[in-house]
């Protein structure tokens, strides 16, 4: 494994971690709101959230490329605020990944929130728990399984992201060359043996990581209640 490969792996993990963190922060309240609102615009908003699912990543990437360009409003704003150009930067990858993986975090959370027994929230409210308190003390632990699903879908989808990064990344080693691109590069480079090793390592690592997550993630036992009653 070359130092470039190591760079790519670290960069990918960093990208996925940052993206997942942002997604959870943004996605949880959004999912909660979507699960509970009776607002008219809800279906529209749900559709917008789901959009990245349907659009080919290259399309998303292409439009992001347009949006990030130094001549665009966003690009100029970014340049003015940070002094750096947005295009082909790590920040650009983060923005792209967040957009691209949003539905993978929001949808499982929303589904879980909608299945959550509201009666328990009512009970918590009578004990003085504010909405925020209810979120952390009841909703989070009861949706643990879905949070883990959401986080791992979001993380994994970012690790595996290819089309968007291909378009907006620029494949710059150490800055925007993530693992999926590096692997693609190896294959294109006809370095099949190296590709096998890298991919094999990724598989083994992922399997171990995932198995560990799932091992320690027994679901909260809402379902198995003997008699919720009386």
């Amino acid at each position: 494994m070359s130092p470039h490969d190591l760079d790519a792996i670290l960069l990918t993990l960093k990208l996925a971690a940052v993206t997942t963190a942002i997604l959870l922060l943004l996605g949880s309240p959004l999912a909660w709101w979507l699960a509970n609102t009776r607002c008219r615009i809800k279906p529209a908003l749900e559709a917008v959230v789901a959009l990245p699912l349907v659009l080919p990543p290259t399309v998303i990437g292409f439009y992001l490329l347009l949006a990030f360009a130094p001549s665009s409003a966003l690009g100029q704003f970014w340049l003015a605020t940070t002094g750096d150009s947005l295009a082909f930067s790590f920040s650009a990858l983060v923005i792209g990944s967040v957009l691209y993986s949003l539905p993978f975090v929001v949808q499982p959370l929303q589904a879980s929130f909608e299945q959550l027994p509201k009666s328990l929230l009512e009970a918590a409210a009578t004990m003085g728990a504010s909405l925020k308190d209810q979120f952390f003390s009841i909703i989070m632990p009861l949706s643990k399984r879905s949070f883990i699903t959401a986080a791992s879908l979001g993380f994994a989808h970012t690790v595996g992201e290819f089309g968007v990064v291909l378009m907006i990344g620029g494949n710059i080693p150490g800055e925007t060359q993530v693992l999926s691109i590096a692997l693609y590069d190896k294959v294109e480079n006809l370095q099949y043996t190296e590709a096998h090793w890298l991919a094999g390592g990724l598989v083994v690592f992922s399997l171990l990581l995932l198995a560990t997550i799932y091992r320690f993630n027994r679901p909260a036992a809402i379902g198995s209640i003997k008699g919720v009653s009386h």
Partner: protein
Amino acid sequence: SNFRWAMSDLINAFEASHPHQLRQVNASSGILFNQITFGAPFDVMLSANSRYPQQLEQLNLAVPESRFTYAEGKLVLAFSDTMQAIPCSFSNDNHLPTVILSCFTAALTNVRQQRSKLAVANPDIAPYGIAAQQALQHLGLWDVTRQHLVRGSNVGQAYQFVATGNTAAGFVALSQMSALQNQASDSLAYWRVPENWYQPIRQQAILLQSGKKNLAALSFLVFLKTGEAKDIIERHGYTTR
């Protein structure tokens, strides 16, 4: 992206004799072009054709007059292990064009009869794809092979299709064959396509606006034109003129 192997050697040679560090970014020419138009921080572009550099010039994204042909690519027809029998053999030096023509025709017919496919780079976008199309047209086989074509998004993919045995044969770049030989892995059988069957694949380099003041970029372009560089390029299966 067919030039990546030559590029690595060029950069090594360049860095050995110059006080500069270069970073190589590989992608298909089209992607690179798009990225440059949207502000990618690149200084020099080495395209697999002349079309993208010309457009960059027109768009004022590149330094006028800096464009030049650094290599001319060569098309080959590569065969996979699954190709059941290659009907004839020849060497480009000592056979008559008619013999070569009939060999190609027989081989391509064989691919069809095997109900296998023929891999090419996408003629709509990739320079080697256009060349492959021209070669097939020259053979008069374009129309009959069309439904047997498998189109990779670039010549690298076309090569993968052949190398993995998913197509019996495919039009790829000579540079890929020599790269593989360098790696000493199983090499594929291939025939060079006579150069008069397709328009020259002029691979052009150009200095981008952002590289205008980059000494490394400027000196690399100068280096590309040196004999040392040309030797390296030719070793990888290109001609330089």
